[in-house]
């Protein structure tokens, strides 16, 4: 194992997406992440099938690379004791249960704290305050935060994003928080409790618009595939395919008009003018593009220096050679290898670990107890016999 976080132990009690994404990025950076799962079924995302890859769901593979799994029943005394021992051996704890669950198990921050421990709760609406008991769901927060009101076409219903982006942002924010806390600990020896709440993160990412509302009361309407701040931006149908255009400067806009033989109306001379007249501009552009082929448009616009690209769905996008080069398969100890989505981070100086695909449920129980706690095989077997540690799941 290598990477900048080599040697950092993460006891990961989180499930579904936000917490597991946070810990996966730490694992990508070299941390030793042990995923503590319920022996029956484990993380919910294991069940997000079909499809499955030898018994592993696409969702589980997406958020659990580079981790090891131990199946512990926290409802059993021996399971709680083992979990506590893992926390005592860990540098970082991550959890995203509902408020009160970790306390019920005696595993909340106040119960387990020590000066050098970093404990991250990706809570729903905070572990304190008036909403601490409310459960958190990505689609609900997309709705409540105002995010959903921005996605979708004008005069149609608001849309949530297909990928639960509030969960994703929360996981990334939690990862930022833990890394910052690790840096602080490196310098001072001090750990701490921190939170990246789902609602707070979902709302914070609307800052581009909520700041404006606080300034002058403006409430944005949906703009579909156009952009709020620049025009023209959108997806347009050509004779034989779809193209995306995103003009950033007035010069590019002049180039666009010349390349397409489109009249450059005076009121479109500035970005502000184009945004104000977005719908009419879009109609003119759509008409100009509809009679051309995708290739004609790409060649003309690229020659004119206008930012553009084929607009694709996943199958065409993944077939592109540049994309295919990033869409690798990575080793899996039980099934040879598994398809993988790339980590967005590249660190050139501290080479990333060799990636390993997400584990079967309970695959590393005995191994982790030996490595982290020095338990013998007999001790591990006793914990299993007490009904606290589940069996090892096999490939389907």
């Amino acid at each position, binding site marked *: 194992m290598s990477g900048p976080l080599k040697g950092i132990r993460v006891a990961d009690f989180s499930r579904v997406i936000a917490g597991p994404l946070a810990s996966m990025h730490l694992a990508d950076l070299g941390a030793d992440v042990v995923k503590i799962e319920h022996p029956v079924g484990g993380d919910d995302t294991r069940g997000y099938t079909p499809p499955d890859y030898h018994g592993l769901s696409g969702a589980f593979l997406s958020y659990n690379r580079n981790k090891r799994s131990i199946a512990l029943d926290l409802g059993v005394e021996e399971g709680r004791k083992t979990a506590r021992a893992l926390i005592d051996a860990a540098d970082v704890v991550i959890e995203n249960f509902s408020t009160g669950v970790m306390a019920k198990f005696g595993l909340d921050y106040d119960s387990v704290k020590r000066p050098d421990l970093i404990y991250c709760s990706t809570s729903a609406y905070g572990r304190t305050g008036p909403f601490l008991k409310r459960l958190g769901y990505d689609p609900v927060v997309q*709705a409540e935060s105002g995010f959903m009101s921005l996605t979708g076409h004008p005069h149609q219903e608001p849309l949530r994003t297909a990928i639960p982006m509030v969960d994703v*942002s929360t996981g990334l924010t939690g990862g930022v928080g833990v890394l910052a806390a690790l840096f602080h600990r490196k310098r001072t020896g001090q750990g701490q409790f921190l939170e990246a709440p789902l609602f707070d993160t979902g709302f914070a990412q609307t800052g581009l618009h909520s700041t404006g509302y606080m300034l002058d009361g403006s*409430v944005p309407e949906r703009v579909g595939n156009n952009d709020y701040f620049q025009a023209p931006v959108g997806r347009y149908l050509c004779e034989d395919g779809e193209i995306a255009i995103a003009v950033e400067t007035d010069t590019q806009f002049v180039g666009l008009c010349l390349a397409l033989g489109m009249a450059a109306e005076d009121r479109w001379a500035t970005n502000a003018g184009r945004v104000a007249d977005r719908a009419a501009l879009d109609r003119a552009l759509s008409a100009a593009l509809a009679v051309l082929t995708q290739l004609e448009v790409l060649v003309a616009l690229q020659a004119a220096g206008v930012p553009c690209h084929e*607009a694709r769905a996943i199958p065409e996008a993944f077939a592109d050679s540049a994309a295919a080069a990033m869409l690798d398969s990575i080793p899996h100890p039980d099934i040879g290898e598994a398809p993988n989505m790339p980590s*967005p981070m590249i660190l050139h100086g*501290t080479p990333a670990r060799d990636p390993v695909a997400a584990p079967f449920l309970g695959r590393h129980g005995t191994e982790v107890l030996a490595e982290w706690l020095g338990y013998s095989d007999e001790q591990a077997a006793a914990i299993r016999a007490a009904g606290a540690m589940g069996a090892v799941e096999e490939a389907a």
Partner: protein
Amino acid sequence: MAGTSNGILDGIVVLDLSSGVAGPAATQTLSDLGADVIKVEPSSGDPVRHWPGPRLECGDSAAFLALNRNKRSVVLDLTGAKGRAAVRAMAGKADVVVVDSPPDALAELGLDAESLRGENPRLIHAEIDPRLPDGSVGRDALHQAASGWGAMSGLPEGPPAKAGLPMIELTAANSLVQAVLAALYAREDSGAGQAVSVGLFRNALAMTYFYGLNYRISGNAPARHGNGSPAAAPLGVFQAADGPLQMTLAGERVWRKFVDNIANRPEWLADERFATNTNRVLNKDVLMAEIDTMFATQPRDRWVDAMRAAGVPGGPIRTIGEAVDSPEVQERGLVGTAPHSAAGEVPVVLNPLRFAGTPVRAPQGAPLLGEHTAEIAAAYGLALA
């Protein structure tokens, strides 16, 4: 600022050569964590200052305020030798430099990792790589389009809809911050900086997550499901008497809670059409219409309060204004004000991270263009005249 700590990254100097969304969002987070972020701008300023929409009297847009708090602004002309020399001099003393130009443009300006790290081996060179698969440069919308990410959301019968926020750039920003923090962490032991990179296109592919992986596993192109799901019902968007709401019912327990506590339609539990999730999916149109009719009879808050009390996942679909004014935002203190040199004070949306030991710093409003040029020139001994 001497004598007081700004937080975890107090004393870390970040030279920010980026503009737009991703780079500035990343350096804003670093500044929230306490770093001293110096924003380098051309005399025309970061284009975001001029984006249309709500703005300050001094001309700066609300979007600029949202991406550039806590920073200091210095105007430098990177196309001229003097400006480049000044940036290289500052990079020689900085801990982190953030760039978002394509590699060939950086190399031409001598701002690539090799050049800058050659003079300052402790430097972390952090790059947002803006290149599309064909090598041309694009921002959020084009990466959504090129990766397939932007085609996943939308109504089943309609065209795709991209995210209403630049999610590829905003998530890339968070990943870049993670990479920078990891590099700072590693530098504590090694003494050496390094080059780190987040590609917008690579990030867009990564963001397709299980849609992308499921396609690679099954070979089936993902369909658009709007606010619904092919696998569960009833869920999606409903119209209450005074506005839309969102409800997510997955699983029998929640369905029963909904029938007993929200709908008060016990006969539904005995109705064969709605007896299982599978049957509810098959009879979705009938069921959704029934629920829509019911929701239309009462205001949204009445339904949402009942859902929360019963543990049924749902919430109001708020406009941006309703969200800002909501009890969740106000009582959790997610917005505030910050001092601003021209406007006195400006509104801010605060960083969502809550550290018990080392809180994020108190916000300072975004800088005016070149507000700190003289101060920084003096501090770094730059000859700009």
